[in-house]
């Protein structure tokens, strides 16, 4: 018997100053035919999504620190509850910064070491994709992907013991690399510690990354590696037993 499941439903949080929500919505609805719900930051209901996106931009003008004000927006309480129940959450760029400020991921994102805003295509090395099955399940250990980056404050920092803990527990899932896959200072676009571009939480459902997967989902604009994160989620949702489906 074939069980037909509803198409994935994704909630995209929108703060004043967010700028990547439409790109995420475009990929989800136009490229993948998913159901998309843009959620204004003052709302408290996510609307029962299968996954939540914290997109890039400059939430609340990045005043004080990137993500520092956004983390107190009403919608974040629902995002935290959704994540705590095991729901898949992705934070890209400013979304990653919000996740660290909210304490949902360790560390912080600081001003790029060269003080420049960097907008470019970037090679990334995938590590321990099984640590983030909902988002990286379709990717392979050690493979190289290309995604755009676009940020002025993407330098990942954390205490050495936090970094060691992330490494030991296979929670560093993306690193800036060169074309050969080597993680070198020259390949590091912002001075991130240990070349870290993306990490996952201890339970594997919350992914934070500086690159923009939503900007690499159609061949016409230069690449489709970002689409593979969306496809991973789709497959993960299909494989998930109905009994553990979340409805918040």
């Amino acid at each position, binding site marked *: 018997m074939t069980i037909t499941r509803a198409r994935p439903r994704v909630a995209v949080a929108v703060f004043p100053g967010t700028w990547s929500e439409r790109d995420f919505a475009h990929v989800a609805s136009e490229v993948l035919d998913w159901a998309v719900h843009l959620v204004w930051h003052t709302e408290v209901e996510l609307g029962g999504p299968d996954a939540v996106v914290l997109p890039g931009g400059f939430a609340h003008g990045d005043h004080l620190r990137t993500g520092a004000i956004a983390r107190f927006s009403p919608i974040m309480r629902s995002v935290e509850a959704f994540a705590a129940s095991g729901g898949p959450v992705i934070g890209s760029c400013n979304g990653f910064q919000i996740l660290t400020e909210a304490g949902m991921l360790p*560390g912080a994102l600081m001003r790029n070491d060269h*003080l420049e805003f960097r907008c470019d295509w970037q090679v990334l090395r995938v590590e321990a994709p099984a640590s983030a099955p909902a988002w990286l399940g379709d990717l392979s250990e050690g493979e190289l992907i290309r995604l755009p980056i676009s940020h002025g404050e993407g330098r990942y920092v954390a205490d050495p013991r936090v970094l060691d803990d992330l490494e030991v527990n296979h929670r560093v899932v993306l690193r800036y690399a060169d074309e050969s896959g080597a993680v070198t200072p020259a390949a590091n676009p912002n001075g991130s510690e240990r070349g870290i571009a993306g990490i996952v939480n201890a339970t594997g459902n919350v992914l934070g990354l500086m690159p923009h997967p939503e900007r690499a989902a159609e061949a016409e604009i230069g690449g489709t590696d970002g689409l593979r994160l969306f496809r991973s989620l789709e497959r993960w949702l299909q494989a998930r037993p109905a009994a553990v489906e979340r409805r918040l």
Partner: protein
Amino acid sequence: MTRWTAEVRVTLRHGIADPEGLSIADALRALGHAGVEEVRSGKLIRVVFSADDRAAAEAEVSEMCRRLLANPVMEDASWDLGTEPEAVAIGSGG
């Protein structure tokens, strides 16, 4: 209730790289200040608020710093607390 003014200084923790400070130091040296050894940048945040007494005001500023004004991952906070804005006014250059 008393009106308090807190001047909160948020600085990068020791060991955290400060590219803005390095850039400012380079600029100062370029201007001829050859003796500049180090520059560390930070933020100054002035908060005017009401609290019953100094102990309550201190506790409140501490909480403000802990929850929002500084990120303990990379920043430290310190502050001066006074009952009049003038009491903690900082000097200004011409």
